[in-house]
């Protein structure tokens, strides 16, 4: 699969134009409706952006993403282009403004191909809760691409775009990246602006890249990261995400948290991930066992925090200012109740109710406040762990991608499957998922690397080191 760095060379050497490249991707998108990767394809806009990019390239201008066709998760606001969150609620919503990341991509002259499908409001790990396009796994169309950034993962893995943006609240970039055999990175909370990212769990959400290589992830992050006056949870930092690529890893320490290799993890996944760890060890890195006792509370804390915030974040959808509005409401109360009940799907309602429960009087202390305490403890634990090691290595998911109908009817099972990814969000640390082989059925397996906050550059470094020796699996599309 063509990486951004390869395409960059081809574009700059004019062996291909951005228009040609864009047309190729658009053709492929049209040829693969069964992937269900896109809610919206912006053919005209993409071609005009590509033309503009070609003009700039002809003028000798260059920037890492100039003329590179990308896909954008459909929960990132694009001015003038519908942003639906794969929900009936926002099916016709046209944002009056651009997300900061979109302004940054535009500034680099990137080409936006379209908006990718996802779990409704990013709530899910299968992307099958989408009320619009339901994406499928390019490695096996009967399997889920993971979620919630399933459309972005399917698009990258299926070769429908050079790379994509996703968002990650509890693993929504890394898990679909692992399921679809690509690289996905969630940067440190506060490195990329959330302004224009439709909020799910505000204290956990982070936008990040999904791409064909770790270096590509770094290229995109270099373009979109930075402190933003519109998002005061962003911090000032000067991370060059790719500056450590190629630097030796020998002598560096990799933490292996034992709790991540327990019974819940599929044996094939475990083996592949342990092999990845061994590869680093063979190349001079030191493996050390670390411990994360709070992991047993992580899923609970994550769902309590995320759903509590979501219950508040999603209250704005009332059928008054935008979005679905019920026909002939009898009263204001009727208007909001019916609009919300018609507009939201089952999983979204479930999480709103759960979050409302966690915050309601009488339950706040027992649930929400406990979750806040666990988050603080989890951060402390991570601080301790990263005093001992440079990065931590874990599976990205307990299993490979499952069949489309399998998990999604059982919320408890579905929630538990997030065990390997949620701690990075709770602790606000960066994490990257890298493909490390396939299982007996040919489905991709991924492992994750995480680092301490703002140590993001170590992740492309380690991931790139692995990639150099291990080809990513390629979908037969």
């Amino acid at each position, binding site marked *: 699969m063509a990486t951004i760095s390869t395409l960059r060379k081809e574009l700059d050497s004019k062996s291909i134009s951005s228009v040609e490249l864009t047309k190729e991707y658009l053709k492929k998108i049209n040829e693969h409706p069964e992937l269900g990767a896109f809610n919206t394809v912006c053919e005209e806009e993409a071609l005009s952006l590509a033309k503009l990019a070609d003009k700039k390239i002809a003028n000798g201008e260059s920037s890492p993403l100039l003329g590179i066709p990308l896909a954008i998760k459909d*929960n*990132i*606001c694009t001015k003038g282009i519908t*942003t639906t*969150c794969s929900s009936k609620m*926002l099916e016709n*919503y046209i*944002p*009056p*403004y651009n*997300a900061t990341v979109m302004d940054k991509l535009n500034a680099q002259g990137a080409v936006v191909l379209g908006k990718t499908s996802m779990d409704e409001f990013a709530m899910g790990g299968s992307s099958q809760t989408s009320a619009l396009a339901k994406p499928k796994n390019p490695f096996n169309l009967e399997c889920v691409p993971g979620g919630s950034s399933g459309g972005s993962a399917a698009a990258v893995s299926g070769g429908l775009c050079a790379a994509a943006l996703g968002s990650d609240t509890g693993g929504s970039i890394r898990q679909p990246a692992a399921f679809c055999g690509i690289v996905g990175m969630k940067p440190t909370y506060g490195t990329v602006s*959330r*302004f*224009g*990212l*439709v*909020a799910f*769990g*505000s*204290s956990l959400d982070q936008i990040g890249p999904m791409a064909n290589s770790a270096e590509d992830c770094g290229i995109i992050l270099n373009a979109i990261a930075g402190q933003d*006056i*519109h*998002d*005061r*949870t962003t911090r000032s930092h000067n991370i060059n995400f790719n500056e450590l690529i190629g630097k030796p890893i020998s002598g560096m320490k990799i933490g292996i948290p034992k709790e991540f290799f327990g019974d819940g993890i599929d044996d094939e996944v475990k083996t592949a991930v342990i092999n990845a760890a061994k590869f680093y060890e063979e190349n001079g890195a030191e493996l050390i066992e670390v411990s994360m006792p709070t992991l047993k509370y992580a899923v609970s804390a994550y769902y309590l925090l995320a759903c*509590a*915030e979501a*219950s*508040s974040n999603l*209250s*704005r959808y*009332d059928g*008054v*200012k*935008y979005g679905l509005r019920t026909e002939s409401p009898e009263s*204001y109360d009727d208007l*909001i109740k019916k609009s919300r009940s018609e507009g939201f799907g089952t999983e979204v309602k479930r999480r709103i109710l759960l979050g*409302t429960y966690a*915050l*309601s*009087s009488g339950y*706040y202390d027992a649930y*929400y406040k406990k979750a*806040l305490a666990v988050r603080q403890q989890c951060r402390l634990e991570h601080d301790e762990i990263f005093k001992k090691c440079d990065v931590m290595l874990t599976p990205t998911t307990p299993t490979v991608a499952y069949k489309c109908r399998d998990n999604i009817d059982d919320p408890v099972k579905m929630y538990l499957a997030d065990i390997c990814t949620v701690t990075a969000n709770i602790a606000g640390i960066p994490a990257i998922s890298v493909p490390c082989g396939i299982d007996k059925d040919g489905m991709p397996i991924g492992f994750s690397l995480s680092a301490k906050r703002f140590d993001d550059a170590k992740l492309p470094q380690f991931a790139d080191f692995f990639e150099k020796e291990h080809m990513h699996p390629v979908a037969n599309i």
Partner: protein
Amino acid sequence: MCKKYDTVIGLEIHAELSTKTKAFCTCDASFGGDPNTHICPVCTGQPGALPVINHAAVEYAMRAGLALNCDINRYTRFDRKNYFYPDLPKAYQISQLDLPLCVNGKVELSTGTVVRIHQIHLEEDAGKMVHDDYHGQSYADYNRCSVPLIEIVTEPDINSPEEAAEFVSKIALYLKYLNVCDAKMQEGSIRADVNISLKPAGSDILGDRAEIKNLNSFRSIQRAIESEIARQTEILDQGGKVVQETRRFDDATGTTSSLRSKENANDYRYFPEPDILAITFTEEDIEKAKSEIPLLPHERVEIYTKEYGLTDEDARVLTSEKYLSDFFDETVAIYPMYKNVSNMFQTEIMRRVKETDSEEIAISAKNFAKVCEMADKNTVNRNDAKTIIRIMFEEGGEPEEIAKTNGFIVVEDTEAIANVVDALFAERPDLIEDYKNGKTNVFGFFMGQANRALKGKATPMSVKAYLEKKFNEI
């Protein structure tokens, strides 16, 4: 009559801060504008938009807290208060619950009652709803959404309707002095919620309270409380129990009525606002804010009475508005004849500005000081001084110029005085004889004649002095 019940009143005062931009976005926060013309993705709750807190809003709230003797929390945090209403686009109000900006203040009333302030927190205002009965619809305008508000929450230390009204007017005056709020009740920039309960006189046990929401004038606050006391007294007298509820005051009938309460839906599910970082303050931040607090009305009254020797009454009138007090201060800094300036100010300046709505005084303190001085020194006579002020208000101009142009300048022409008086003495030897015989009232006749003849050339004082000298020589 012996009082049967003690009244216990607590207030929550909401005051809109007069910042240029809204609390959480850069939209124009000024009052008015066509519907939805002061809006952006943030204040209309667009998906993905994030609040960014305004430095001035925090600064103003802190200044108010310091002036009301509060402690400033060195770490203050925002919380979301969740409820659905069409004037609240995000369906939550960004407010403060656990770690408000200001805590533990106090204000003393003229009755000697000390009202403790529980906390002052910063929050955002909601939009405006217009109701259309004909079409059975309401219309939402979000121009006011996210305008910064402070909520001042008192302890239940207030004992009467009069005290409540005094407290609110005192707070309004302070906020104006602090330049943090316009305090225009008609524009809704100050509103109050009142909690009232009665308890048997002398008892320590608080009764069940009713809350009256959204009172927007000093008068309606007082009337609402009076009416509510009467209502609760009647209930208690009949052995009944006051229902803990929210009530509304109707200005037309002067009575309160119950708002249909959905008590079960009143769970606001506060939680820490994840989109806004907590704010920390250094000691320098606090010191700087303190240094920006102007002298407050009670401090000025103290100076006016103790140092300037003005009466308490005069001092209160002068400090009734900050711009008046500032103008007075500026005048006496140039011309420190406090009593005279105060008199002239009250009769000539305050009368005029009260006729207008504006808080601008059309003449400068420097010119006003000059006129006061001219009148005191008899450079012009007092009536002409007033005319000069009128002309300055109506047409502008410099006081000396106006006095000259209109022939108001009093010239002390001693030669003329001597000539006129000597001639009068020569004309009326009969009256001189009368004087010698003890009819001293003839002095008045000469005084009148001389003044008439000398108008514009000499002041009555000089004429009098010369006459006295002349009579003494007889």
